[in-house]
């Protein structure tokens, strides 16, 4: 059908790259700064609140075509060829296949196993794998063309069960002490197998990328992304570009949570390939269905755990086996598995530990980064074990954790001595106190006793309270930061402006607010005097990916050090405080730029080969208490209240930090209760927002966040990061609360009503009528 031109089309002035105004124009007094507790307001907040902020799909590039991806509908097959319906006018459409890729047909990441497009004769390894690309001037033509492409394939036998997979992406083996002897000598050995499924990041802005040809034969991509330089590298390799031909510009980004860490490289390459062939801009905007069906998820995992304890409650040994399902390609599985492995013992002192882990391939879409990055999976198992041990010993789950939690000077299974910044006991105490954990637990126990006494009769709902504790390594694992060698810069421009240049992206967490804040504090100027350079690889240095809760700690630290050097240089020249002299200095001497490269934290050493040493420069600590109501007729769970205590080293901005805790807590509550990808024959069944459900405001608990500060001396400001901490503790706390309410343990996430009712029936604690059902 033809779409007629509207009689009134309002010209759209938002030229690409034009940044939305970020100046605050709220009249004084309108905004009570007291509510932000003295911290600055979100830098790009006004633009977001007025609709002026430009996300990728809001950007207009005149003459742009629309791109689409032809994907496999099988989980495992050989691609024999593409069939184009000869009855269709293909002159209106541009088609890209693997044969059009000028460089290497790989999406550059850890392993070079994932193709940009499956080549003819190549192996399709998962459902929804990209096989070919189409572009057309309008959506109607594109839609028609998509229906006229058929894949010719030969089916191959798929592997869906990770326990049967013979292809291992990575494996780790961490041992300390003698586990077998410890378990043999234990009074009590508690065993458990815990399963967690896929979780979708579900950023509300779908993946989106627009590729624009450059005059030098390269391509600039504008998109929704976390890691500009990951994409930059992927473009250089697959498109054979030099540093300048590959240009990556971040548009305003509507959430990431890890989901926009690696997959945007794939989309950027697709859009760029089409743009090169069309010689015009191409928009690659995913709809929700494609986004859920094709992009990465949190790794499903199976964790087998055996813990030995003495009758008097000492933790003697932990024997842990982890299998993670990496999906069809390696993506980030080795590092996700690494973090999961290193956190699997939980934040507890134990002399005899064995952790064996592997990440394996299955014919399902590749799994990847998601807030927590392997740790939520294994720490769920660790916390379930502690609770079940407490139950077996008749001990308080709070008291047992208090006895076992790492203290200063304790040694982890990799041999890391915890020399500073250890706050497990404090977050535990703060969360327990604020939630009145012990008092409420007595009350729920009394209610359960009363219900038993009444033979199952009584109120339709039961209340419960649960607790969890976790640690989370701050920044990259092992020597990751040393290898990255990130750079952050600050520039005093010739016209007297102060600009912070980093590749760290803003996706809601507050990068664009805290970096000017840190810089302004260090330079002694007002925050309004500090600007942020746009996240454009043509302008900013590679300060590493925006992942691993490293932005505030690592890159923030580099920004401070760069500012310190800039201040010293200017003050040495002018003999006056920076704030009073920098404009004059710039006028007289022109621009001054300081590039600050990462320097290894003193005394932190890790051996990647043996997995011995300081796995992380420091750890953040998190405790969570959850209160739930369980409907005993239906198994429905309402998470009523959560108290979260998180040690972030130093709080830079209390409102933003609390925002991270609250948002992460709700993602964890979703993980615990309703979020579940259902997979059939390697395909996600619930690949729409009507079927993959996340919590609404009515499902969300009242969240109280307590920020604890145990600073890390390696960072100039002491900060350790906050983003991932709440993700590690929410699920085990909720499941413990469900147990407190119902008496049953749910070993598999999410703890759905289906699983809860089945567990109640199996435990025989079901109400009488079910026997007749």
């Amino acid at each position, binding site marked *: 059908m033809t779409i007629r031109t509207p009689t009134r089309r309002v010209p759209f002035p938002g030229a690409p790259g034009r940044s939305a105004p970020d100046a605050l124009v709220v009249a004084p007094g309108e905004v009570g700064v007291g509510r932000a507790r003295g911290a600055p307001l979100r830098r790009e907040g006004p633009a977001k609140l007025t609709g002026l902020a430009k996300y990728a799909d809001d950007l207009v590039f005149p003459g742009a075509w629309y791109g689409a991806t032809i994907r496999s509908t099988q989980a495992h097959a050989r691609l024999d060829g593409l069939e184009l319906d000869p009855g269709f006018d293909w002159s209106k459409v541009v088609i890209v296949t693997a044969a059009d890729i000028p460089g290497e047909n790989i999406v550059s990441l850890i392993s070079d196993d994932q193709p940009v497009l499956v080549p003819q004769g190549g192996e399709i390894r998962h459902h929804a794998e990209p096989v070919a690309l189409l572009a057309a001037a309008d959506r109607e033509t594109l839609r028609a063309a998509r229906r006229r492409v058929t894949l010719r394939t030969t089916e191959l036998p798929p592997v869906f069960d990770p326990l049967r997979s013979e292809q291992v992406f990575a494996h780790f083996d961490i041992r300390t002490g003698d586990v077998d002897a410890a378990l043999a000598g234990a009074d009590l050995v508690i065993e458990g197998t815990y399963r967690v499924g896929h979780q979708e990041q579900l950023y509300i802005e779908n993946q989106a990328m627009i590729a624009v040809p450059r005059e030098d034969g390269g391509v600039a991509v504008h998109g929704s992304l976390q890691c500009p330089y990951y994409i930059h590298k992927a473009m250089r390799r697959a498109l054979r570009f030099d540093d300048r031909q590959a240009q990556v510009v971040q548009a305003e980004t509507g959430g990431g949570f890890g989901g926009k860490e690696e997959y945007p490289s794939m989309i950027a390459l697709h859009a760029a390939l089409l743009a090169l062939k069309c010689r015009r801009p191409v928009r690659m905007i995913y709809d929700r*269905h494609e986004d859920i069906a094709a992009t990465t998820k949190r790794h499903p995992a199976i964790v087998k755990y055996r813990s030995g304890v003495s009758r008097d409650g000492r933790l003697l040994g932990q024997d842990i086996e982890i299998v993670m399902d990496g999906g069809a390609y390696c993506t980030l599985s080795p590092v996700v598995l690494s973090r999961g492995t290193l956190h699997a013992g939980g934040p507890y002192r134990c002399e005899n530990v064995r952790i064996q882990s592997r990440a394996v391939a299955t014919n399902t879409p590749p799994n990847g980064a998601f807030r927590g990055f392997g740790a939520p999976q294994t720490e769920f198992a660790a916390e379930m074990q502690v609770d079940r041990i407490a139950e077996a010993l008749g001990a308080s789950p709070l008291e047992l954790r208090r006895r076992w939690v790492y203290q200063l000077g304790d040694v982890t299974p990799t041999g890391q001595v915890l020399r500073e910044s250890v706050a497990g006991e404090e977050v535990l105490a703060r969360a327990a106190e604020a939630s009145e954990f012990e008092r409420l637990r007595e009350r729920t126990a009394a209610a359960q006793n009363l219900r038993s006494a009444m033979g199952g009769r009584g109120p339709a709902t039961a209340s419960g309270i649960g607790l969890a504790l976790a640690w989370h390594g701050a920044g990259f694992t092992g020597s990751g930061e040393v290898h990255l060698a990130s750079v952050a810069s600050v520039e005093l421009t010739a016209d007297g402006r102060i600009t912070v240049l980093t590749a760290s992206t803003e996706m809601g967490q507050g990068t664009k607010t805290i970096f000017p804040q840190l810089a302004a504090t260090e330079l002694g100027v007002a925050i309004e005097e500090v600007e942020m350079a746009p996240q454009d690889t043509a302008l900013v240095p590679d300060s590493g990916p925006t992942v691993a809760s490293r932005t505030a700690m690592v890159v923030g630290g580099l920004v401070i050090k760069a500012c310190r050097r800039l201040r010293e240089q200017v003050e040495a020249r002018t003999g006056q405080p920076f704030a009073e002299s920098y404009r004059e200095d710039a006028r007289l001497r022109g621009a001054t730029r300081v590039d600050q490269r990462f320097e290894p934290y003193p005394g932190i050493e890790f051996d990647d080969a043996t997995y011995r040493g300081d796995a992380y420069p420091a750890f953040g600590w998190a405790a969570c208490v959850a209160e739930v109501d369980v409907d005993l007729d239906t198994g429905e769970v309402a998470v009523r209240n959560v108290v979260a205590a998180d040690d972030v080293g130093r709080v830079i901005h209390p409102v933003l930090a609390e925002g991270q805790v609250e948002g992460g807590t709700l993602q964890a509550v979703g993980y615990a209760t*309703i979020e579940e990808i259902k997979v059939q024959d390697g395909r996600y069944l619930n690949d729409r927002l009507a079927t993959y*459900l996340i*919590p609404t405001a*009515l499902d969300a608990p009242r969240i109280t966040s307590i920020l604890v500060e145990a600073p890390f001396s390696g960072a100039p400001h002491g900060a350790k990061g906050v983003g991932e901490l709440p993700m590690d503790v929410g699920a085990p706390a909720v499941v413990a609360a469900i147990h407190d309410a119902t008496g049953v343990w749910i070993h598999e996430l999410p703890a759905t*009503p289906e699983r809860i009712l089945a567990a109640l029936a199996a435990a025989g604690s079901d109400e009488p*009528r*079910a026997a007749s*059902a």
Partner: protein
Amino acid sequence: MPYEPPVESPMHLRDALAILASEGSRPIAGGTDVMVQITGELGPPPERMLDLWHLQELRGIALTGNTLSLGALTTYTEIRRSGRCREHAPALVEAAATIGAAQIQNRGTLGGNIANASPAGDTLPVLLAMDAEIVVGSLRGERSIPARAFWTGYRETALAPDELVLRVLLPTDPERRVRFRKVGTRRAQAISKVVMALSWRDGSSAGWQDVRLALGSVADRPIRAKETEAMLEGRLPTQATADRAAASIAAEIHPIDDVRSTAAYRRAVTARVLHRLIRDAGGW
């Protein structure tokens, strides 16, 4: 941007019925279901559309004698706000409040829920339990179809291709109790796993009279559970009654596994929710 089929937006019912009779267009009321279908992702999109939104004849809530009449275009928000509905059809108000959230309630219509014929339609068990009459019309004239005969199969109705749902007639009966319960995955914006409406007239010592038990999401269409209704007829809401009813309904229904839940869960929960409703009625 999805497919944009041609659409006509008549201002009068007779024009709409004429278009329907000659062109067989897909009607669209509040659009909360149909607009998802035009994305084409759930099957082929409709070829042409008939917009009902401007038909004033299909609007309004009226009480005539012992009959509450709701126009097909009555939105869930209008049901929730209507004093007449709150007084004479509180279970319908309760059902309307569980559908979607404000955005959906402001557009979604009772007629749309009926004609869309989803087995999970949240108001449909209430209409069954209240023994509603669904008045439909075409150029050939009007006829009234009892709710119990309206849904004839999976997303199939007794509507002829040239007929539209015009209004719903609910008998008001101060002696009749109607109880509603929806079990979904979350507390808003959720399609039901099980939805139940139970109604009866209090016969004091003679027990419950004229019992109706209606269910959604446990069959290919909204259903009445006739065997369990018969079992409940003339009984008092005692524990023995609840136990027998739970066993009866569990044996009577044959739900399936799907992306939202399992057959086993639906069966168990249907029995348990029914047990609970009887127990609440009995006050024990």
